[in-house]
């Protein structure tokens, strides 16, 4: 068991609580930096996807996990980021400019979506977000003059400060770097007044407002930041697959993004990364399992069934997600042999009406 003895206030502000954490995270970062030299092409590709979806996961975690809002339409922001990047690159704008533009454009739309969200809660907000998603995808499909419609847009490799970033290695480092920066930014937010205001809104809007938190400002800010992060991921995504079309960003995609947050663990930064990893790995496992199906049974539906079952099982049995399970395992080891069953059990409650939030 480890005891943290606190001697001054600055300790609570530190990013890493103790030297053990520093060691393990440093090791992880070193392994990730070394990956291109030991991993094959396939694994590199998967790692890049994990980085990109981690950034989306962080954006969604900020909105859902930390501010308590809902978004079933985040693929729209991914699309906005991707298309902004594609269109700007086609017009010769350098990546160092087009990436922030993608983020800002997505953030702006996020802010716009946040405005009506001020009056909407729960399921109404969820519906507004997915209606937004459907409309954005439809606009992208119909505005053929700008977006090429269903024919989609192609992207050239990134050129950053004169360097071509098209190899596995350089693109991977770009994605990894942006992921780490996003994580740091989110952690900084959470130990500052802004982050506390978000959490306050999540737990009790009325008393947050009475403590001086301007709900309108902070809710739209949360939407904007969340959308901005997703916009960055969108720009990277566009370059990763080199070809974007509206049908990649439908409601189905949005739901997959939300599952990152749910499977990873709502309210934990680690959850975003774990969820992203799981989302990328799951289809691979399903493909392997397809080979074991009896003949006559089509494999097409297996992905759908497993995905749905995983979602259901996680929500019923592991509401804290993958990170929650890891926390439980780690606590078991830390407190050994004093771990008590039920330490993480949530209180059973009768349905509390959310119509009266």
């Amino acid at each position: 068991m480890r005891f943290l003895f606190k001697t001054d206030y600055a300790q609570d502000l530190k990013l890493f609580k103790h030297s053990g954490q520093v060691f393990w995270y440093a090791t992880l970062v070193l392994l990730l930096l070394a990956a291109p030299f030991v991993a094959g092409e396939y694994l590199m590709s998967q790692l890049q996807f994990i980085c990109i979806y981690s950034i989306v996961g962080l954006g969604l975690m900020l909105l859902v996990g930390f501010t308590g809002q809902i978004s079933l339409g985040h693929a729209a922001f991914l699309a906005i980021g991707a298309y902004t990047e594609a269109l700007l690159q086609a017009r010769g704008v350098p990546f160092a400019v087009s990436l922030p533009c993608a983020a800002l454009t997505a953030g702006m739309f996020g802010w716009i979506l946040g405005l009506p969200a001020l009056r909407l809660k729960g399921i109404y907000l969820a519906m507004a977000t997915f209606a937004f998603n459907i409309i954005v995808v439809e606009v992208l499909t119909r505005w053929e003059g700008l977006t090429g419609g269903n024919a989609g847009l192609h992207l050239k490799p990134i050129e950053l400060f004169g360097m071509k970033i098209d190899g596995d290695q350089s693109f991977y480092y770009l994605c990894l770097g942006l992921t780490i920066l996003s994580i740091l930014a989110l952690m900084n937010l959470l130990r500052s007044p802004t982050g506390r205001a978000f959490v306050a809104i999540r737990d009790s809007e009325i008393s947050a407002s009475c403590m001086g938190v301007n709900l309108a400002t902070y809710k739209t800010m949360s939407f904007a930041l969340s959308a901005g992060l997703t916009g960055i991921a969108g720009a990277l995504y566009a370059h990763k697959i080199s070809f974007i079309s509206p049908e990649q960003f439908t409601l189905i995609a949005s739901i997959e993004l939300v599952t990152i947050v749910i499977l990873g663990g709502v309210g934990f930064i680690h959850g975003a990364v774990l969820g992203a990893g799981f989302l990328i790995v799951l289809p691979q496992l399903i493909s392997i399992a397809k080979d074991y199906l009896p003949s006559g049974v089509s494999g097409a539906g297996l992905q759908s069934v497993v995905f749905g079952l995983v979602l259901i099982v996680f929500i019923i049995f592991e509401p804290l997600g993958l990170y929650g399970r890891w926390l439980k395992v780690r606590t078991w080891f830390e407190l050994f042999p004093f771990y008590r069953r039920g330490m993480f059990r949530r209180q059973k409650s009768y349905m509390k009406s959310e119509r009266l939030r």
Partner: protein
Amino acid sequence: MFLNQVLQLLLAGVAQGCVYALVALGFVLIYKATETVNFAQGDLMMLGGFFALTASVIMGWPYWATILFAVVVMAAVGMLIERIVLRPVLGQPAFTVVMITIGVGYVLRGVVTMVPGWGTDTYTFPTPFADGTFKIGGVIFAVQQVAVIVMTAALVTVLYLFFRFSKLGVAMQATSQNQLAAAYMGIPVRRVNMMIWGLSAGVAAFAGILLAPVTFVHSNMGFIGLLAFPAAVLGGFGSVPGAIVGGLIVGVVEAFAGRHLPEGFKDVAAYVVLLLVLFIRPSGIFGETARKKV
């Protein structure tokens, strides 16, 4: 001439709207009782369509028997889903439960594509109304459309009588307003919830059968169910007459948008209406607003 055109579109809109109304009705029943929004409602509809298809084509039963079969089987499926998947999460926040229903939708779609004999193909569904039409004063009525409207009206009437006069119906109303108080009054809340899911799934099956001639039966048929959301919101989430009215309005808006607006708008028209309603009057036409007392 113009009036005829308008009436024609109105008829088409109302007929399609009946289907949306039924799916929205299923939503609203579940929402009223458990405050759960069932994203799998459309997929329940799809599964009901497949059961009806099986009864009709493979087992060769008459139309009315297949309706009964599909409704009863789906009612059982609905109750099973509630018992296995939803009861463990009773009391968790609404968002969590919504995600579970989304998971259920995925499982239903996947299972349907994996069943040999169903798979990913599209099937036509035979009905006794087929392609007959008749004319009243310049407006062409398709027997199919009229049948949909009449059957929907019949079902809605039956449900109204059920909720108003039967013991179970009144118990359901009580559970939907205050679970704890209903439990204290001796109402078996969990069982009632299960039955509401059964009822909702049965209604969804009915909607699937009515929809099948129009969209054909296939595993993605349930996505039309998404259009029931604007319907339910428009009418006022939590209001049964609202769901019907909302569904009809959405159907009509779609019909007129398809005729008068450029291509593509037809699909999003309903969602634009949804957004407008949410911004202007989230409680919808018949819904109530409530606020928390601190």
